Protein backbone atom coordinates (compact mmCIF):
# COMPACT_ATOMS: atom_id res chain seq x y z
CA UNK A 1 0.00 0.00 0.00
CA UNK A 2 2.87 2.34 0.71
CA UNK A 3 4.27 1.77 -2.73
CA UNK A 4 0.88 2.38 -4.25
CA UNK A 5 0.56 5.67 -2.42
CA UNK A 6 4.00 6.72 -3.53
CA UNK A 7 3.25 5.86 -7.14
CA UNK A 8 -0.01 7.79 -7.03
CA UNK A 9 1.70 10.80 -5.53
CA UNK A 10 4.39 10.73 -8.18
CA UNK A 11 1.85 10.51 -10.99
CA UNK A 12 0.06 13.51 -9.51
CA UNK A 13 2.97 15.80 -10.24
CA UNK A 14 2.82 15.73 -14.03
CA UNK A 15 -0.95 15.84 -13.69
CA UNK A 16 -0.77 19.09 -11.77
CA UNK A 17 1.70 20.49 -14.28
CA UNK A 18 -0.64 19.77 -17.15
CA UNK A 19 -3.60 21.25 -15.32
CA UNK A 20 -1.75 24.44 -14.49
CA UNK A 21 -0.47 24.78 -18.04
CA UNK A 22 -3.94 24.25 -19.49
CA UNK A 23 -5.56 26.75 -17.15
CA UNK A 24 -2.86 29.30 -17.90
CA UNK A 25 -3.38 28.86 -21.62
CA UNK A 26 -7.14 29.13 -21.24
CA UNK A 27 -6.69 32.37 -19.36
CA UNK A 28 -4.67 33.87 -22.18
CA UNK A 29 -7.64 33.44 -24.46
CA UNK A 30 -10.07 35.07 -22.09
CA UNK A 31 -11.13 38.47 -23.39
CA UNK A 32 -9.84 41.26 -21.22
CA UNK A 33 -6.68 41.17 -19.16
CA UNK A 34 -6.12 42.21 -15.53
CA UNK A 35 -5.59 45.83 -16.56
CA UNK A 36 -8.95 45.92 -18.27
CA UNK A 37 -10.48 44.60 -15.10
CA UNK A 38 -8.58 46.92 -12.84
CA UNK A 39 -9.94 50.04 -14.47
CA UNK A 40 -13.70 50.62 -14.66
CA UNK A 41 -15.12 51.68 -18.05
CA UNK A 42 -15.32 55.36 -17.20
CA UNK A 43 -11.96 55.76 -15.52
CA UNK A 44 -8.98 57.52 -16.95
CA UNK A 45 -5.52 56.10 -16.60
CA UNK A 46 -2.81 57.72 -18.68
CA UNK A 47 -0.80 55.62 -21.08
CA UNK A 48 2.21 56.14 -18.87
CA UNK A 49 0.38 54.83 -15.83
CA UNK A 50 -0.80 51.81 -17.77
CA UNK A 51 2.75 51.00 -18.75
CA UNK A 52 3.91 51.24 -15.17
CA UNK A 53 1.09 49.00 -14.01
CA UNK A 54 1.81 46.53 -16.76
CA UNK A 55 5.44 46.18 -15.84
CA UNK A 56 4.61 46.05 -12.18
CA UNK A 57 2.21 43.18 -12.72
CA UNK A 58 4.61 41.32 -14.95
CA UNK A 59 2.23 41.48 -17.86
CA UNK A 60 4.80 42.89 -20.23
CA UNK A 61 6.73 39.65 -20.50
CA UNK A 62 6.02 36.95 -23.04
CA UNK A 63 3.47 34.32 -22.09
CA UNK A 64 5.77 31.32 -21.69
CA UNK A 65 8.10 33.44 -19.55
CA UNK A 66 5.19 34.47 -17.36
CA UNK A 67 4.12 30.85 -16.98
CA UNK A 68 7.53 29.52 -16.10
CA UNK A 69 8.15 32.33 -13.66
CA UNK A 70 4.91 31.43 -11.96
CA UNK A 71 5.80 27.77 -11.98
CA UNK A 72 9.26 28.40 -10.57
CA UNK A 73 7.83 30.30 -7.65
CA UNK A 74 4.92 27.91 -7.17
CA UNK A 75 7.09 24.89 -6.54
CA UNK A 76 8.79 26.86 -3.80
CA UNK A 77 5.45 27.55 -2.21
CA UNK A 78 5.15 31.14 -3.43
CA UNK A 79 1.94 31.54 -5.35
CA UNK A 80 2.45 35.20 -6.05
CA UNK A 81 0.29 38.18 -5.30
CA UNK A 82 -3.25 39.06 -6.19
CA UNK A 83 -3.52 41.68 -8.85
CA UNK A 84 -6.57 43.18 -7.28
CA UNK A 85 -5.13 44.12 -3.92
CA UNK A 86 -1.56 42.94 -3.78
CA UNK A 87 -2.21 40.38 -1.08
CA UNK A 88 -0.29 37.13 -1.28
CA UNK A 89 -2.36 34.47 -3.02
CA UNK A 90 -1.54 31.80 -0.50
CA UNK A 91 -2.61 34.04 2.37
CA UNK A 92 -5.92 34.82 0.66
CA UNK A 93 -6.55 31.15 0.09
CA UNK A 94 -5.54 30.41 3.62
CA UNK A 95 -8.17 32.83 4.79
CA UNK A 96 -10.93 31.60 2.52
CA UNK A 97 -10.36 27.88 2.59
CA UNK A 98 -11.40 27.30 6.23
CA UNK A 99 -14.93 28.72 5.77
CA UNK A 100 -15.44 26.57 2.67
CA UNK A 101 -14.07 23.51 4.45
CA UNK A 102 -16.30 24.29 7.39
CA UNK A 103 -19.34 24.53 5.16
CA UNK A 104 -18.40 21.44 3.19
CA UNK A 105 -17.49 19.56 6.34
CA UNK A 106 -20.75 20.19 8.09
CA UNK A 107 -22.74 19.64 4.90
CA UNK A 108 -20.97 16.38 4.24
CA UNK A 109 -21.26 15.12 7.79
CA UNK A 110 -24.96 15.85 7.99
CA UNK A 111 -25.40 14.42 4.53
CA UNK A 112 -23.54 11.22 5.29
CA UNK A 113 -25.14 10.59 8.65
CA UNK A 114 -28.69 11.29 7.55
CA UNK A 115 -28.14 9.68 4.17
CA UNK A 116 -26.99 6.40 5.63
CA UNK A 117 -29.65 6.54 8.28
CA UNK A 118 -32.50 7.05 5.84
CA UNK A 119 -30.96 4.55 3.45
CA UNK A 120 -31.03 1.82 6.05
CA UNK A 121 -34.60 2.62 7.01
CA UNK A 122 -35.67 2.61 3.37
CA UNK A 123 -33.95 -0.73 2.80
CA UNK A 124 -35.35 -2.41 5.86
CA UNK A 125 -38.83 -1.14 5.13
CA UNK A 126 -38.52 -1.62 1.41
CA UNK A 127 -41.47 -1.30 -0.91
CA UNK A 128 -43.54 0.25 1.84
CA UNK A 129 -44.97 3.73 1.62
CA UNK A 130 -42.11 5.03 3.76
CA UNK A 131 -39.58 3.63 1.35
CA UNK A 132 -41.32 5.07 -1.67
CA UNK A 133 -41.69 8.45 -0.04
CA UNK A 134 -38.05 8.57 0.97
CA UNK A 135 -36.97 7.51 -2.50
CA UNK A 136 -39.13 10.17 -4.06
CA UNK A 137 -37.79 12.83 -1.73
CA UNK A 138 -34.27 11.71 -2.51
CA UNK A 139 -34.88 12.15 -6.21
CA UNK A 140 -36.39 15.54 -5.50
CA UNK A 141 -33.28 16.47 -3.61
CA UNK A 142 -30.95 15.79 -6.50
CA UNK A 143 -33.25 17.37 -9.03
CA UNK A 144 -33.43 20.79 -7.49
CA UNK A 145 -30.83 23.31 -8.64
CA UNK A 146 -28.55 24.35 -5.79
CA UNK A 147 -29.14 28.06 -6.16
CA UNK A 148 -32.90 27.68 -6.13
CA UNK A 149 -32.74 25.71 -2.92
CA UNK A 150 -30.42 28.35 -1.51
CA UNK A 151 -32.62 31.31 -2.45
CA UNK A 152 -35.79 29.67 -1.21
CA UNK A 153 -34.08 28.47 1.93
CA UNK A 154 -32.81 31.93 2.75
CA UNK A 155 -36.17 33.48 1.97
CA UNK A 156 -38.21 31.05 4.06
CA UNK A 157 -35.92 30.39 6.99
CA UNK A 158 -34.07 33.65 7.32
CA UNK A 159 -36.67 36.16 6.29
CA UNK A 160 -40.09 34.71 6.82
CA UNK A 161 -39.43 32.56 9.86
CA UNK A 162 -36.48 34.52 11.18
CA UNK A 163 -34.77 31.42 12.52
CA UNK A 164 -31.39 32.21 11.04
CA UNK A 165 -29.48 35.32 10.01
CA UNK A 166 -29.63 36.37 6.38
CA UNK A 167 -26.20 35.29 5.34
CA UNK A 168 -22.77 36.32 6.42
CA UNK A 169 -20.19 34.45 8.41
CA UNK A 170 -20.64 36.19 11.75
CA UNK A 171 -22.36 39.15 13.29
CA UNK A 172 -20.00 42.12 13.08
CA UNK A 173 -18.44 42.63 16.44
CA UNK A 174 -18.98 39.11 17.63
CA UNK A 175 -17.64 36.01 16.01
CA UNK A 176 -17.82 33.47 18.75
CA UNK A 177 -18.24 29.80 17.93
CA UNK A 178 -21.98 29.84 18.49
CA UNK A 179 -22.40 32.97 16.38
CA UNK A 180 -20.61 31.38 13.46
CA UNK A 181 -22.56 28.19 13.91
CA UNK A 182 -25.80 30.11 13.72
CA UNK A 183 -24.73 31.53 10.37
CA UNK A 184 -23.45 28.17 9.18
CA UNK A 185 -26.44 25.96 9.80
CA UNK A 186 -28.76 27.07 7.01
CA UNK A 187 -26.32 26.90 4.08
CA UNK A 188 -24.83 23.67 5.42
CA UNK A 189 -28.20 21.96 5.60
CA UNK A 190 -29.10 23.06 2.08
CA UNK A 191 -25.74 21.81 0.88
CA UNK A 192 -26.27 18.48 2.59
CA UNK A 193 -29.57 17.79 0.87
CA UNK A 194 -27.90 16.52 -2.30
CA UNK A 195 -25.62 14.30 -0.27
CA UNK A 196 -28.51 12.90 1.76
CA UNK A 197 -30.34 12.14 -1.45
CA UNK A 198 -27.48 10.38 -3.21
CA UNK A 199 -26.22 8.47 -0.21
CA UNK A 200 -29.66 7.37 0.81
CA UNK A 201 -30.19 5.64 -2.49
CA UNK A 202 -26.80 4.02 -2.60
CA UNK A 203 -27.01 2.87 1.00
CA UNK A 204 -30.43 1.47 0.36
CA UNK A 205 -29.35 -0.56 -2.63
CA UNK A 206 -26.12 -1.79 -1.00
CA UNK A 207 -27.96 -2.77 2.14
CA UNK A 208 -30.60 -4.55 0.09
CA UNK A 209 -27.97 -6.44 -1.89
CA UNK A 210 -26.28 -7.71 1.19
CA UNK A 211 -29.36 -8.25 3.30
CA UNK A 212 -30.46 -11.21 1.27
CA UNK A 213 -27.20 -12.98 0.89
CA UNK A 214 -26.82 -16.38 2.40
CA UNK A 215 -24.47 -15.63 5.22
CA UNK A 216 -26.78 -12.99 6.56
CA UNK A 217 -29.75 -15.28 6.35
CA UNK A 218 -27.74 -17.90 8.14
CA UNK A 219 -26.89 -15.58 10.95
CA UNK A 220 -30.50 -14.52 11.11
CA UNK A 221 -31.69 -18.11 11.21
CA UNK A 222 -29.23 -18.82 13.94
CA UNK A 223 -31.08 -16.31 16.01
CA UNK A 224 -28.74 -13.35 15.97
CA UNK A 225 -30.87 -10.29 16.58
CA UNK A 226 -31.72 -8.39 13.40
CA UNK A 227 -30.19 -5.03 14.18
CA UNK A 228 -26.92 -6.68 15.10
CA UNK A 229 -27.04 -8.54 11.82
CA UNK A 230 -27.43 -5.29 9.97
CA UNK A 231 -24.82 -3.45 11.91
CA UNK A 232 -22.13 -6.04 11.70
CA UNK A 233 -22.42 -7.62 8.31
CA UNK A 234 -24.34 -5.28 6.18
CA UNK A 235 -22.88 -1.93 7.02
CA UNK A 236 -19.33 -2.90 6.37
CA UNK A 237 -20.16 -4.11 2.91
CA UNK A 238 -22.33 -1.18 2.18
CA UNK A 239 -19.54 1.22 3.01
CA UNK A 240 -17.66 0.78 -0.24
CA UNK A 241 -20.09 2.50 -2.54
CA UNK A 242 -20.61 5.10 0.14
CA UNK A 243 -16.93 5.92 0.24
CA UNK A 244 -16.86 6.06 -3.55
CA UNK A 245 -19.73 8.45 -3.67
CA UNK A 246 -18.26 10.72 -1.03
CA UNK A 247 -14.95 10.85 -2.83
CA UNK A 248 -16.47 11.40 -6.24
CA UNK A 249 -18.69 14.17 -4.98
CA UNK A 250 -16.06 16.26 -3.29
CA UNK A 251 -15.56 18.15 -6.52
CA UNK A 252 -19.32 18.60 -6.67
CA UNK A 253 -19.37 19.93 -3.17
CA UNK A 254 -16.95 22.65 -4.18
CA UNK A 255 -19.25 23.45 -7.08
CA UNK A 256 -22.40 23.54 -5.00
CA UNK A 257 -20.59 25.67 -2.51
CA UNK A 258 -19.99 28.35 -5.16
CA UNK A 259 -23.67 29.15 -5.47
CA UNK A 260 -24.47 28.88 -1.82
CA UNK A 261 -21.46 30.95 -0.82
CA UNK A 262 -22.62 33.64 -3.19
CA UNK A 263 -26.20 33.65 -1.93
CA UNK A 264 -25.32 33.49 1.74
CA UNK A 265 -22.34 35.84 1.52
CA UNK A 266 -20.23 33.05 2.93
CA UNK A 267 -16.59 34.17 2.53
CA UNK A 268 -15.20 30.99 1.02
CA UNK A 269 -13.13 29.90 -1.97
CA UNK A 270 -16.15 29.66 -4.27
CA UNK A 271 -16.79 33.38 -3.98
CA UNK A 272 -13.06 33.99 -4.17
CA UNK A 273 -12.91 32.17 -7.44
CA UNK A 274 -15.86 34.04 -8.96
CA UNK A 275 -14.22 37.28 -7.89
CA UNK A 276 -10.90 36.29 -9.39
CA UNK A 277 -12.48 35.53 -12.74
CA UNK A 278 -14.35 38.83 -12.70
CA UNK A 279 -11.14 40.72 -12.16
CA UNK A 280 -9.06 38.47 -14.42
CA UNK A 281 -6.79 38.01 -11.45
CA UNK A 282 -4.40 35.54 -13.07
CA UNK A 283 -2.26 34.67 -10.06
CA UNK A 284 -5.34 34.14 -7.95
CA UNK A 285 -7.01 31.92 -10.53
CA UNK A 286 -3.89 29.84 -11.05
CA UNK A 287 -3.30 29.52 -7.33
CA UNK A 288 -6.87 28.52 -6.54
CA UNK A 289 -6.99 25.98 -9.35
CA UNK A 290 -3.77 24.42 -8.17
CA UNK A 291 -4.91 24.11 -4.59
CA UNK A 292 -8.33 22.76 -5.60
CA UNK A 293 -6.72 20.21 -7.91
CA UNK A 294 -4.42 19.09 -5.12
CA UNK A 295 -7.36 18.69 -2.77
CA UNK A 296 -9.27 16.64 -5.32
CA UNK A 297 -6.27 14.43 -6.08
CA UNK A 298 -5.71 13.85 -2.38
CA UNK A 299 -9.38 13.08 -1.87
CA UNK A 300 -9.27 10.52 -4.68
CA UNK A 301 -6.16 8.95 -3.21
CA UNK A 302 -7.65 8.73 0.26
CA UNK A 303 -10.83 7.26 -1.14
CA UNK A 304 -8.89 4.55 -2.92
CA UNK A 305 -6.82 3.83 0.16
CA UNK A 306 -9.94 3.55 2.26
CA UNK A 307 -11.24 0.90 -0.14
CA UNK A 308 -8.26 -1.20 0.75
CA UNK A 309 -8.95 -0.82 4.41
CA UNK A 310 -12.62 -1.63 4.15
CA UNK A 311 -12.43 -4.51 1.74
CA UNK A 312 -9.28 -6.58 2.01
CA UNK A 313 -10.19 -8.30 -1.19
CA UNK A 314 -9.27 -5.26 -3.16
CA UNK A 315 -5.72 -5.45 -4.36
CA UNK A 316 -3.70 -2.51 -5.44
CA UNK A 317 -2.39 -3.07 -8.90
Amino acid at each position, binding site marked *: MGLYTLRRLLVSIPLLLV*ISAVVFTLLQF*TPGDPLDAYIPPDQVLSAQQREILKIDLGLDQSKPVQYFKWLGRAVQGDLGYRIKNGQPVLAELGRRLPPTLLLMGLGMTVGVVLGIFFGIIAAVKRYTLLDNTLTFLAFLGISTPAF*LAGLLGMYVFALKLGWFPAGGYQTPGQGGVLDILRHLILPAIILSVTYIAILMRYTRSSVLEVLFQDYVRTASAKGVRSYRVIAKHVLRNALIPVVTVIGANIANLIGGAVFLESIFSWPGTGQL*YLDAIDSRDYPMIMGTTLI*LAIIILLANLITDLLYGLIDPRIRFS
Partner: protein
Amino acid sequence: MTAIAPSESTKLRAQTPGSMALKRFLRHRLAVVGLVLLGVIVLLVIFGPLIARFGPDEIDLLARNQPPGGAHWLGTDPTGRDILARTLSAGRVSLMVGLFSTLISVVIGTTLGALAGYFGGWVDNVIMRFVDVVMTFPSIVVLLTLAAIVGPGIDKTIIIIGVLGWPLAARLVRAKLLSVRELDFISAATALGANDRRILLRHALPNVIDVLVVFVSLGVASGILTEAGLSFLGLGVQPPQASWGNLLSSAREINILESYVWQWMPAGLLIILTVLATNFLGDGLRDALDPKAKQ
Protein backbone atom coordinates in the same frame (compact mmCIF):
# COMPACT_ATOMS: atom_id res chain seq x y z
CA MET B 1 -34.79 -38.12 -28.14
CA THR B 2 -38.42 -37.27 -27.98
CA ALA B 3 -39.28 -33.93 -29.37
CA ILE B 4 -41.31 -31.84 -27.11
CA ALA B 5 -44.49 -31.11 -28.88
CA PRO B 6 -45.78 -27.69 -28.16
CA SER B 7 -49.09 -27.83 -26.40
CA GLU B 8 -51.33 -25.17 -25.13
CA SER B 9 -50.19 -25.50 -21.59
CA THR B 10 -46.47 -25.97 -22.11
CA LYS B 11 -45.75 -23.46 -24.81
CA LEU B 12 -42.20 -22.27 -24.41
CA ARG B 13 -41.91 -18.66 -25.29
CA ALA B 14 -38.56 -17.41 -26.48
CA GLN B 15 -37.36 -14.63 -24.23
CA THR B 16 -35.12 -12.18 -26.00
CA PRO B 17 -32.82 -10.04 -23.90
CA GLY B 18 -34.82 -7.11 -25.18
CA SER B 19 -38.14 -8.30 -23.93
CA MET B 20 -36.62 -9.33 -20.62
CA ALA B 21 -35.22 -5.89 -20.20
CA LEU B 22 -38.54 -4.36 -21.09
CA LYS B 23 -40.26 -6.47 -18.50
CA ARG B 24 -37.79 -5.44 -15.80
CA PHE B 25 -38.20 -1.84 -16.81
CA LEU B 26 -41.96 -1.91 -16.62
CA ARG B 27 -41.81 -3.35 -13.15
CA HIS B 28 -40.07 -0.20 -11.97
CA ARG B 29 -43.02 2.01 -11.20
CA LEU B 30 -41.04 5.19 -10.80
CA ALA B 31 -39.23 4.60 -14.08
CA VAL B 32 -42.47 4.30 -15.96
CA VAL B 33 -43.73 7.44 -14.31
CA GLY B 34 -40.51 9.12 -15.39
CA LEU B 35 -40.92 8.03 -18.97
CA VAL B 36 -44.49 9.26 -19.14
CA LEU B 37 -43.62 12.54 -17.45
CA LEU B 38 -40.72 13.13 -19.78
CA GLY B 39 -42.91 12.34 -22.73
CA VAL B 40 -45.49 14.86 -21.65
CA ILE B 41 -42.86 17.56 -21.11
CA VAL B 42 -41.22 16.92 -24.46
CA LEU B 43 -44.56 17.09 -26.24
CA LEU B 44 -45.51 20.29 -24.45
CA VAL B 45 -42.25 21.86 -25.35
CA ILE B 46 -42.32 20.81 -28.98
CA PHE B 47 -45.87 21.91 -29.53
CA GLY B 48 -45.36 25.04 -27.47
CA PRO B 49 -45.86 27.47 -30.33
CA LEU B 50 -49.21 25.88 -31.06
CA ILE B 51 -50.31 25.87 -27.45
CA ALA B 52 -49.30 29.36 -26.43
CA ARG B 53 -51.30 32.19 -27.82
CA PHE B 54 -48.43 34.66 -27.80
CA GLY B 55 -44.88 34.60 -29.06
CA PRO B 56 -42.15 34.24 -26.46
CA ASP B 57 -40.60 37.57 -27.44
CA GLU B 58 -43.68 39.71 -27.81
CA ILE B 59 -43.19 42.69 -25.56
CA ASP B 60 -46.24 44.54 -24.35
CA LEU B 61 -45.32 47.25 -21.90
CA LEU B 62 -48.94 47.87 -21.00
CA ALA B 63 -49.41 44.31 -19.77
CA ARG B 64 -46.47 44.05 -17.41
CA ASN B 65 -46.28 41.74 -14.43
CA GLN B 66 -49.80 40.45 -14.77
CA PRO B 67 -50.70 37.48 -12.59
CA PRO B 68 -51.99 34.27 -14.18
CA GLY B 69 -55.54 34.28 -15.50
CA GLY B 70 -57.12 36.13 -18.33
CA ALA B 71 -55.47 36.36 -21.71
CA HIS B 72 -52.09 35.25 -20.38
CA TRP B 73 -52.62 31.86 -18.79
CA LEU B 74 -49.48 31.98 -16.71
CA GLY B 75 -49.21 35.74 -16.47
CA THR B 76 -46.58 38.07 -17.86
CA ASP B 77 -43.05 39.15 -17.07
CA PRO B 78 -41.72 42.70 -16.45
CA THR B 79 -41.86 43.55 -20.14
CA GLY B 80 -45.24 42.00 -20.74
CA ARG B 81 -44.07 38.84 -22.42
CA ASP B 82 -46.25 35.76 -21.98
CA ILE B 83 -44.81 33.44 -19.34
CA LEU B 84 -46.34 30.30 -20.81
CA ALA B 85 -44.82 30.96 -24.21
CA ARG B 86 -41.46 31.82 -22.73
CA THR B 87 -41.36 28.82 -20.44
CA LEU B 88 -42.17 26.44 -23.27
CA SER B 89 -39.66 28.09 -25.60
CA ALA B 90 -37.13 27.95 -22.78
CA GLY B 91 -37.88 24.26 -22.48
CA ARG B 92 -36.79 23.71 -26.03
CA VAL B 93 -33.52 25.45 -25.30
CA SER B 94 -32.82 23.70 -22.01
CA LEU B 95 -33.70 20.27 -23.34
CA MET B 96 -31.55 20.88 -26.39
CA VAL B 97 -28.65 21.97 -24.23
CA GLY B 98 -29.08 18.91 -22.04
CA LEU B 99 -29.42 16.51 -24.93
CA PHE B 100 -26.76 17.81 -27.29
CA SER B 101 -24.18 18.40 -24.62
CA THR B 102 -24.63 14.81 -23.51
CA LEU B 103 -24.37 13.61 -27.09
CA ILE B 104 -21.07 15.44 -27.44
CA SER B 105 -19.86 13.76 -24.26
CA VAL B 106 -20.99 10.41 -25.63
CA VAL B 107 -19.25 10.81 -28.95
CA ILE B 108 -15.95 11.94 -27.49
CA GLY B 109 -16.16 9.58 -24.55
CA THR B 110 -17.10 6.51 -26.56
CA THR B 111 -14.34 7.07 -29.07
CA LEU B 112 -11.66 7.49 -26.46
CA GLY B 113 -13.07 4.88 -24.13
CA ALA B 114 -13.38 2.33 -26.92
CA LEU B 115 -9.83 2.91 -28.06
CA ALA B 116 -8.56 2.61 -24.52
CA GLY B 117 -10.65 -0.41 -23.62
CA TYR B 118 -10.11 -2.34 -26.76
CA PHE B 119 -6.44 -1.81 -27.41
CA GLY B 120 -5.17 -1.65 -23.88
CA GLY B 121 -1.48 -1.20 -23.35
CA TRP B 122 0.05 2.23 -23.77
CA VAL B 123 -2.97 3.55 -25.65
CA ASP B 124 -5.06 2.76 -22.64
CA ASN B 125 -2.52 4.34 -20.31
CA VAL B 126 -2.26 7.61 -22.19
CA ILE B 127 -6.00 7.98 -22.61
CA MET B 128 -6.69 7.15 -18.99
CA ARG B 129 -4.14 9.70 -17.80
CA PHE B 130 -5.92 12.24 -19.99
CA VAL B 131 -9.22 11.22 -18.42
CA ASP B 132 -7.69 11.69 -14.99
CA VAL B 133 -6.53 15.18 -15.85
CA VAL B 134 -9.90 16.31 -17.10
CA MET B 135 -11.73 14.66 -14.23
CA THR B 136 -9.46 16.26 -11.70
CA PHE B 137 -10.11 19.72 -13.00
CA PRO B 138 -12.45 21.29 -10.51
CA SER B 139 -15.33 21.43 -12.93
CA ILE B 140 -16.58 24.74 -11.68
CA VAL B 141 -13.20 26.22 -12.55
CA VAL B 142 -13.36 24.97 -16.10
CA LEU B 143 -16.97 25.97 -16.51
CA LEU B 144 -16.42 29.52 -15.42
CA THR B 145 -13.16 30.00 -17.25
CA LEU B 146 -14.46 28.50 -20.46
CA ALA B 147 -17.65 30.51 -20.24
CA ALA B 148 -15.63 33.67 -19.73
CA ILE B 149 -13.50 32.82 -22.74
CA VAL B 150 -15.92 31.63 -25.35
CA GLY B 151 -18.66 33.87 -24.12
CA PRO B 152 -22.27 33.05 -23.52
CA GLY B 153 -24.77 31.63 -25.96
CA ILE B 154 -26.61 28.38 -26.53
CA ASP B 155 -24.13 26.65 -28.78
CA LYS B 156 -21.18 27.58 -26.65
CA THR B 157 -22.94 26.39 -23.52
CA ILE B 158 -23.62 23.06 -25.20
CA ILE B 159 -19.97 22.66 -26.11
CA ILE B 160 -18.70 23.61 -22.67
CA ILE B 161 -20.96 21.20 -20.82
CA GLY B 162 -20.28 18.47 -23.37
CA VAL B 163 -16.57 18.85 -23.05
CA LEU B 164 -16.81 18.46 -19.28
CA GLY B 165 -18.87 15.28 -19.34
CA TRP B 166 -16.93 13.01 -21.64
CA PRO B 167 -14.49 11.50 -19.09
CA LEU B 168 -17.29 9.68 -17.31
CA ALA B 169 -18.57 8.27 -20.59
CA ALA B 170 -15.06 7.20 -21.53
CA ARG B 171 -14.63 5.42 -18.22
CA LEU B 172 -17.95 3.61 -18.54
CA VAL B 173 -17.30 2.52 -22.10
CA ARG B 174 -13.81 1.35 -21.29
CA ALA B 175 -14.95 -0.64 -18.27
CA LYS B 176 -17.67 -2.32 -20.28
CA LEU B 177 -15.29 -3.13 -23.11
CA LEU B 178 -12.74 -4.59 -20.74
CA SER B 179 -15.29 -7.02 -19.43
CA VAL B 180 -16.58 -7.81 -22.89
CA ARG B 181 -13.16 -8.22 -24.46
CA GLU B 182 -12.55 -11.55 -22.86
CA LEU B 183 -15.86 -13.01 -23.87
CA ASP B 184 -15.87 -16.02 -26.11
CA PHE B 185 -17.54 -14.56 -29.10
CA ILE B 186 -14.86 -11.96 -29.44
CA SER B 187 -12.14 -14.59 -29.33
CA ALA B 188 -14.08 -16.58 -31.85
CA ALA B 189 -14.30 -13.64 -34.18
CA THR B 190 -10.58 -13.01 -33.84
CA ALA B 191 -9.86 -16.66 -34.51
CA LEU B 192 -11.98 -16.46 -37.60
CA GLY B 193 -9.76 -13.68 -38.83
CA ALA B 194 -11.93 -10.59 -38.34
CA ASN B 195 -9.79 -7.45 -38.13
CA ASP B 196 -9.69 -5.09 -35.16
CA ARG B 197 -11.99 -2.46 -36.49
CA ARG B 198 -14.64 -4.93 -37.51
CA ILE B 199 -14.58 -6.60 -34.15
CA LEU B 200 -14.78 -3.28 -32.41
CA LEU B 201 -17.63 -1.92 -34.42
CA ARG B 202 -19.74 -4.98 -35.01
CA HIS B 203 -19.25 -7.00 -31.87
CA ALA B 204 -17.89 -5.03 -28.98
CA LEU B 205 -19.57 -1.68 -29.26
CA PRO B 206 -23.17 -2.84 -29.44
CA ASN B 207 -22.66 -4.22 -25.95
CA VAL B 208 -21.81 -0.84 -24.73
CA ILE B 209 -25.12 0.68 -25.79
CA ASP B 210 -26.91 -0.15 -22.56
CA VAL B 211 -24.31 1.66 -20.48
CA LEU B 212 -24.53 4.65 -22.77
CA VAL B 213 -28.30 4.78 -22.71
CA VAL B 214 -28.21 5.17 -18.96
CA PHE B 215 -25.46 7.74 -19.27
CA VAL B 216 -27.48 9.79 -21.73
CA SER B 217 -30.58 9.90 -19.60
CA LEU B 218 -28.65 10.93 -16.52
CA GLY B 219 -26.47 13.25 -18.56
CA VAL B 220 -29.47 15.16 -19.84
CA ALA B 221 -30.53 15.76 -16.26
CA SER B 222 -27.11 16.93 -15.27
CA GLY B 223 -26.82 19.12 -18.36
CA ILE B 224 -30.08 20.89 -17.58
CA LEU B 225 -28.95 21.59 -14.03
CA THR B 226 -25.56 22.84 -15.17
CA GLU B 227 -27.16 25.16 -17.71
CA ALA B 228 -29.41 26.48 -14.98
CA GLY B 229 -26.40 27.16 -12.80
CA LEU B 230 -24.47 28.90 -15.55
CA SER B 231 -27.41 31.10 -16.43
CA PHE B 232 -27.83 31.98 -12.79
CA LEU B 233 -24.27 33.31 -12.82
CA GLY B 234 -25.01 35.33 -15.95
CA LEU B 235 -23.20 33.00 -18.31
CA GLY B 236 -25.00 30.33 -20.28
CA VAL B 237 -28.00 31.37 -22.34
CA GLN B 238 -28.41 35.11 -22.80
CA PRO B 239 -31.53 37.22 -22.98
CA PRO B 240 -33.69 37.75 -24.89
CA GLN B 241 -33.47 34.02 -25.52
CA ALA B 242 -35.20 32.24 -22.67
CA SER B 243 -33.90 29.13 -20.98
CA TRP B 244 -35.25 27.57 -17.82
CA GLY B 245 -32.04 28.64 -16.13
CA ASN B 246 -32.27 32.30 -16.97
CA LEU B 247 -36.00 32.43 -16.32
CA LEU B 248 -35.30 31.00 -12.90
CA SER B 249 -32.48 33.43 -12.25
CA SER B 250 -34.96 36.30 -12.17
CA ALA B 251 -35.77 34.99 -8.69
CA ARG B 252 -32.50 36.54 -7.66
CA GLU B 253 -34.41 39.72 -6.97
CA ILE B 254 -36.32 39.44 -3.74
CA ASN B 255 -39.22 41.39 -5.17
CA ILE B 256 -39.70 38.85 -7.94
CA LEU B 257 -39.07 35.90 -5.64
CA GLU B 258 -41.74 37.14 -3.31
CA SER B 259 -44.39 38.93 -5.32
CA TYR B 260 -44.13 37.62 -8.85
CA VAL B 261 -43.95 33.93 -8.15
CA TRP B 262 -45.53 32.99 -11.47
CA GLN B 263 -42.55 34.42 -13.33
CA TRP B 264 -40.01 31.92 -12.07
CA MET B 265 -41.87 29.03 -10.53
CA PRO B 266 -43.01 27.37 -13.80
CA ALA B 267 -39.41 27.22 -15.02
CA GLY B 268 -38.23 25.98 -11.65
CA LEU B 269 -40.90 23.32 -11.46
CA LEU B 270 -40.20 22.17 -14.98
CA ILE B 271 -36.48 21.87 -14.27
CA ILE B 272 -37.23 19.78 -11.22
CA LEU B 273 -39.81 17.63 -13.00
CA THR B 274 -37.64 17.05 -16.07
CA VAL B 275 -34.59 16.21 -14.04
CA LEU B 276 -36.71 14.02 -11.80
CA ALA B 277 -38.19 12.23 -14.78
CA THR B 278 -34.84 11.63 -16.45
CA ASN B 279 -33.39 10.42 -13.17
CA PHE B 280 -36.24 7.94 -12.69
CA LEU B 281 -35.84 6.88 -16.29
CA GLY B 282 -32.11 6.45 -16.01
CA ASP B 283 -32.49 4.48 -12.84
CA GLY B 284 -35.04 2.22 -14.40
CA LEU B 285 -32.95 1.74 -17.52
CA ARG B 286 -29.93 0.86 -15.45
CA ASP B 287 -31.85 -1.78 -13.55
CA ALA B 288 -33.46 -3.11 -16.68
CA LEU B 289 -30.44 -3.30 -18.94
CA ASP B 290 -27.71 -4.09 -16.48
CA PRO B 291 -29.24 -5.67 -13.41
CA LYS B 292 -25.88 -6.75 -12.05
CA ALA B 293 -24.22 -3.42 -12.57
CA LYS B 294 -22.68 -1.81 -9.54
CA GLN B 295 -21.83 1.88 -9.49
